[in-house]
C-alpha cells in the first residue's frame, strides 16, 4: 500500500509550494504592518470595503443562479442526445473556451458599446441606442458567459450517468414532467450541481478583469480593489492580503454551508 502513497508525492510537493506557502504568506502579510509588527489594523480597515465585498458576492450569486438555470436544461438535453450528437454538442461548447478569456471579454466590449454591433443592429430597425455596457448587468453577463461551461460540463458528466430506465420507471409509475425533474433528475444530479456552483461562484466572486472591461470601472468588485492595493497609487500588500483573506474566509464559509445542504440529498440508489 505504500507505493500508491508515494505516487502522490509530486502533487503534495506542488500543493505545498504553490498553495500552502502562498496562503501562509497571505496570512502573514494580512497580520503585519509595513514595519513587520503584528497588527489587526488591516483586517479592521476591511470594514470600509464591506459594501463592495457584498456587491461582489451578490453579483457572483446572481451569475451562479443564472448559470444553473441555463445549464441544467442544456446539460440534460445534451446528456439525452445520441452519442454522435453528444460529442458534437460538447465540442461546440468547448470551442469558445479555446479562445483566450481576455479576448472573449474584449469581444463583448465591441458588441455592447453604444456604437457596437448590437446597437447598430437595433439602429437598423430604428431602435436605441441602448446603454448596454458599463453597468452591473454587463458585468453579470460577462460572468455568465465566461463561466457557463464550468456549470454545464460537471452537470453533463453526472447526468449522462443517469440510467434512462430510471427515468422511464418514474414515467411508468405516472410521474409528470415537473415531478420527474424534481424527484429524480435533480437529486441525482446534485453532485454535478455542487461542483458546478463552486466552479462558477469562486472565479466570479474574485474576478477583476470582467468588471473592469464590461463595467467600465464604475462597477468595481472586490477583485479590483485588491488588485489596486498592489498596482495602484500606494503599494500596500498588507491591506491587499487582508482583503484577500477576508474574501477567502467568507467564500469558504459559504461553500461549507452549501455543501451541507448538498450532502443531504445524497440519495442512496
Amino acid at each position, binding site marked *: 500500500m505504500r507505493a500508491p502513497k508515494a505516487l502522490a508525492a509530486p502533487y503534495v510537493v506542488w500543493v505545498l509550494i504553490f498553495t500552502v506557502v502562498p496562503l501562509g504568506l497571505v496570512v502573514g502579510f494580512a497580520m503585519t504592518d509595513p514595519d513587520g509588527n503584528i497588527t489587526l489594523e488591516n483586517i479592521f480597515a476591511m470594514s*470600509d*470595503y*464591506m*459594501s*463592495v465585498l*457584498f*456587491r461582489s*458576492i*451578490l453579483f457572483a*450569486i446572481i451569475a451562479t443562479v443564472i448559470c444553473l438555470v441555463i445549464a441544467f436544461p442544456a446539460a440534460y438535453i445534451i446528456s439525452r442526445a445520441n452519442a454522435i450528437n453528444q460529442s458534437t454538442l460538447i465540442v461546440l461548447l468547448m470551442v469558445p473556451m479555446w479562445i483566450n478569456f481576455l479576448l472573449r471579454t474584449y469581444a463583448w*466590449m*465591441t458588441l455592447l*458599446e*453604444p*456604437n*457596437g454591433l448590437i446597437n447598430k443592429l437595433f439602429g437598423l430597425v430604428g431602435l436605441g441606442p441602448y*446603454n448596454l*455596457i*458599463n453597468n452591473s448587468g454587463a458585468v453579470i453577463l460577462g460572468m455568465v458567459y465566461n463561466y457557463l461551461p464550468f456549470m454545464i460540463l460537471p452537470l453533463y458528466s453526472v447526468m449522462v450517468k443517469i440510467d434512462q430506465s430510471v427515468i422511464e420507471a418514474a414515467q411508468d409509475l405516472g410521474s409528470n414532467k415537473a415531478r420527474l425533474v424534481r424527484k429524480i433528475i435533480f437529486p441525482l444530479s446534485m453532485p454535478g450541481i455542487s461542483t458546478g456552483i463552486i466552479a462558477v461562484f469562486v472565479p466570479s466572486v474574485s474576478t477583476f478583469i470582467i468588471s*473592469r*472591461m464590461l*463595467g*467600465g*470601472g*464604475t462597477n*468595481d468588485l472586490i477583485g*479590483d*480593489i485588491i488588485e*489596486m492595493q*498592489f*498596482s*495602484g*497609487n*500606494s*503599494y*500596500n*500588500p498588507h491591506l491587499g492580503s487582508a482583503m484577500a483573506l477576508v474574501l477567502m474566509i467568507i467564500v469558504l464559509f*459559504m461553500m461549507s*454551508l*452549501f455543501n*451541507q*445542504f448538498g450532502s*443531504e440529498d445524497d440519495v442512496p440508489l
Partner: protein
Amino acid sequence: MKRFIFALTAFVMLLSLAGCGQAAAGDERASTEEILEEFGLDPELFSDYDYGRFYGEEITLNVANWGEYMSINDDEMTDVNELFEALTGVTVNYKTYASNETLYSKLLSGGATYDIVIPSDYMISKMINEGMLEKLDFDNIPNLKNIMGGFLNPQYDPTNEYSVPYLWGMVCIIYNTTMVDEEITSWKTLWDEKYAGNILMFNNPRDAFGIAQAYLGYSLNTEDREQLDRCAELLREQKEIVQGYVMDEIFDKMEGGSAAVAPYYVGDAVTMCDDNPDLEFVIPEEGTNWFVDAICIPTTSDPENKEVAEAYINFLCEAEIALANCDYVGYSTPNQAAFELLDDDAKEDERRYPSDEFLIENTEVFVNLSDDANAYMQELWTQLKVDNSNVWFVPIFLVCLIAATIFVNVRRARKKKRDNF
C-alpha cells in the same frame, strides 16, 4: 530505412549549416555601415560608438517597457531591437508592463530582473529616493549630447545621474467632433452635463486627481488634505455623468465613437486622431500635466550587463532610433537630433512641441508624493470607486445568508424526522 537515413543526413547537414552560420557570426560581424544599410538607415546619421564590442559574448539584455512604447514588430518601421541585436550580438529580452506602479511592485518584490526600465518622472524620483536605481556611467552614453538642454537635470533627477529622457508628452482632452459642436478649451467640459454618459475618465488616481487639481487651480503635487478632499468631491460629482473609467481601452472606445470626450496623453491622442479623422484634441487652458518617461537601470539588474545596458541607452539616443520610436509611439521626443529629422507638421504642432514658455507657465510635472499623501489619495480614490448609493446590498446579502441557514437546518430536521420513522 533509406528514407530514414536520408532524413538523418539532412538533419545533420542542417545542424552543421546552423553551426557554420553561428561560427561565422561569432567571428566576424558585418560592418556597422552594412548592418545599418540593411535596415534602411543612413550611416551618416549614426554615431561612431563601438556597438561591436560585446559581439560573440552571448549576453541577454532584459528590457522592460510600457506596452506599445517602442518601434518593434511593425513591418513598415525599423525594428529597433532587431537592429540592436544585429549591431551588438546581444539578445534583447523585451517585456512590457502596464503602469509605473506595476513596475515598482515587480522590482520591489524581486519577481523580475530587468536591466533596462523606462518609468515616468515621479516614479523615478521615488525609486531614486528608495535606492532602487543604479547611477549611470555617462562615458558609455556619449549620445546624451543629443538630448535637449531643457530635459537635463530635471526635477525628478536633479543631478541627472540616474536617467536619460526617452519620450514625453502632456495630458490633453480628446473629443469627437461629430458629437461635440463647441470648441473645447477647458477641463470643465469633463463636468458638463451635456455630455452625460459620453465622458470617459482616467482609471488611475494620480491622473484623475491631476485633472481635478488642474481644474481647481491647485498644484498637481498638492499634499494638502483639504484640497485632496475637494478634488475627490469633484470627481464624485463627475462619477454621475461618467460613462466609464478606462486606460488603454480608450483607443477602441474613442476610435469607435462610443464616447464624446475624454482626457488622455497627447501621443496617444495623435495615434487615435490618425485612425479616426473625426477626433480632435486640445490642451486645456487651465494647464496640464507634463510628463517625461526616462530610461534607467535598476539596482536589481545583472551587474555584468550594466555596460551593455548603457550601450542600449546610447543606442536609443541615436537620432534615427529616437525618431523611429517617436514616430511609432506618437509621443514627443526630447532628442534634438531626432527632432530635426521630424516632419514640419509635427515640429510645428504646439500641442506636441510647445514652446518652453508654455511648458513653464502652463504645465507641471508630477513629483513623488509622500507615502502618506499617496496612501490618502489611494484611499479617496478607492472610496470614490467603491461608493455606491445602493444601501440594500448588505441587508439583502444577510437575508440570503440567514435564509440559507434556516433552509439547511429545516431540511436537516425534516430528514431526521423522516429517518426516525
